[in-house]
């Protein structure tokens, strides 16, 4: 039982890294992207191929996977720069399908529908992580989640974050404020894809195998659900959303009633969550954080008067 809970926590952390990336794209910058699973798939398969066929060290493979996913982020980011809202969503949806089909059909590299098995676990200071021992994995992943979270936080609370939010609020006004919109849009897509790639890489290394149909449209929707449920444009809320979604999707197994409620119920559940949230609480459970810059000022003015 404890093992199963640890497993869930590990999935929560892996998905959190990915959903934090998607939150940058959807929540902060307001670009509806439906291909986060594709970025995870790219990351997972990069790691799988590099480590099995390429015999690469995990840490190098991890970085390469992130970089490859980021590169794909640029590739999808540039041509879709002028697209907004629904049109961007459709374009990213198409990209996701392309990635899935490339993985499925590029037999010589991805072994097609068979997937890739026997991915070695990462080793650190002579210790090798395996999926049998979950606690070390948990700490390793927690470290990366914390790093991702902090980096995003620093970024968001600087002029970069404000620029992203300005783009979400009004692109024309943002460009009239001297913000290079194209640069930020492609940049945020790249960063989001990098996060997805990292998450995918961990996914592959933890499961020690990858299968092509894992990273399908449903997974993108699930990650989007995490972002929307917690609250768009709020990293903490995104993590909370991820916790809730992963637990909800594993609940039948957790309670031992998976034979009564089949896994396909998840899809109904995600759909229901999206519809319900959009109607009754579009800002998410927690919602956006309002940064009260003026509050800091009070002390400063008092200080000046003294």
């Amino acid at each position: 039982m404890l093992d199963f809970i640890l497993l869930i926590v590990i999935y929560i952390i892996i998905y959190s890294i990915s959903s934090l990336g998607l939150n940058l794209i959807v929540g902060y910058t307001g670009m509806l992207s439906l291909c986060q699973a594709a970025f995870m798939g790219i990351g997972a398969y990069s790691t799988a191929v590099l480590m099995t066929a390429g015999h690469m060290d995990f840490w190098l493979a991890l970085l390469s996977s992130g970089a490859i996913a980021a590169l794909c982020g640029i590739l999808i980011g540039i041509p879709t720069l002028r697209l907004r809202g629904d049109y961007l969503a459709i374009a990213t949806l198409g990209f996701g399908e392309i990635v899935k089909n490339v993985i499925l059909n590029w037999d010589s590299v991805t072994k097609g529908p068979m997937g890739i098995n026997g991915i070695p676990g990462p080793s650190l200071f002579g210790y090798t992580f395996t999926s049998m021992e979950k606690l070390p994995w948990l700490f390793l992943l927690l470290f990366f989640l914390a790093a991702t979270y902090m980096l995003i936080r620093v970024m968001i609370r600087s002029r970069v974050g404000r620029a992203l939010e300005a783009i979400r609020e009004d692109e024309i006004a943002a460009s009239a404020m001297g913000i290079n919109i194209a640069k930020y849009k492609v940049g945020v897509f790249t960063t989001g894809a990098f996060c997805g790639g990292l998450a995918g890489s961990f996914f592959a290394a933890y499961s020690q195998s990858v299968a092509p149909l894992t990273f399908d449209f449903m997974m993108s929707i699930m990650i989007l659900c995490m972002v929307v449920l917690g609250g768009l444009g709020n990293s903490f809320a995104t993590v909370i959303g991820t916790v809730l979604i992963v637990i909800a999707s594993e609940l039948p197994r957790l309670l031992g009633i998976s034979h009564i409620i089949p896994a396909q119920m998840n899809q109904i559940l995600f759909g229901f969550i999206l519809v319900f949230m959009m109607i009754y609480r579009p800002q998410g459970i927690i919602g956006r954080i309002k940064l009260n810059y003026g509050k800091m000022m009070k002390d400063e003015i008092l200080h000046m008067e003294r």
Partner: protein
Amino acid sequence: MPLLYTKNLRREFGGVIAVSDVNFEVMKNSITGLIGPNGAGKTTLFNNITGLDFPTKGNVFFKGEDITELPAYKITRIGIARTFQNIRLFREMTVFENVMIGRHFRGNHPKLSRNRLVNFALGMVNLKMEEKDIYENSIKWLDFFNLLPFRDEYAKNLPYGRQRELEIARALATEPDLLFLDEPAAGMNPQETEELMATIRKIRDLGVTVVLIEHDMKLVMNICDTITVLNYGQKIAEGTPGQIQNNKDVIEAYLGKSDD
């Protein structure tokens, strides 16, 4: 030489000529009015100068340099800011954040190197100084417009007149040499308009050249040094308020031709 001028600027939308070979001049440190009946091409001219739209033919010169092809964000960076006819605030951001955005591209602290690589190397130190600089600058402009009490409100929650002021504050935070105001007094009551006039004069006294589109003739005639009149995309008159008031073509454009 004028601070900004257009040379035979022309903008066609399909068959419609919105702006027809207009030579528009703005002298340094002046307040210039741009007036004309609805659909005369005033906003189109603004958009073509500020890089939100590009002319079919003709050029725009600022400080002697051709800026016709520059995109909006570069136009802002060389010192031209603007407001919009239909207020375009970042509605779900606070008043403070709105003004902070104005200083986005001047982010690097003046004390630091202009060299990006050096700034990048300075990393977190730079980030902190940058925020402090943005912060102090924002306080300055909020104070200028007496918006400090509203600083942590969402922009969308401000009263209409305050929103207009915030938009000007945000534009000024980019520290422009030239400020374009598109109908700043629209929807304001006479008292608010009166205050706006004082504010615009104050802005000019800071050394910022102001160009404004406005339908409120009292405001235009009171504060503008020169006025340019557009009608059907063409410049029909140019001169001091006194000259414009007595110009036959202008009266005709606004009131129509008399029969006798």
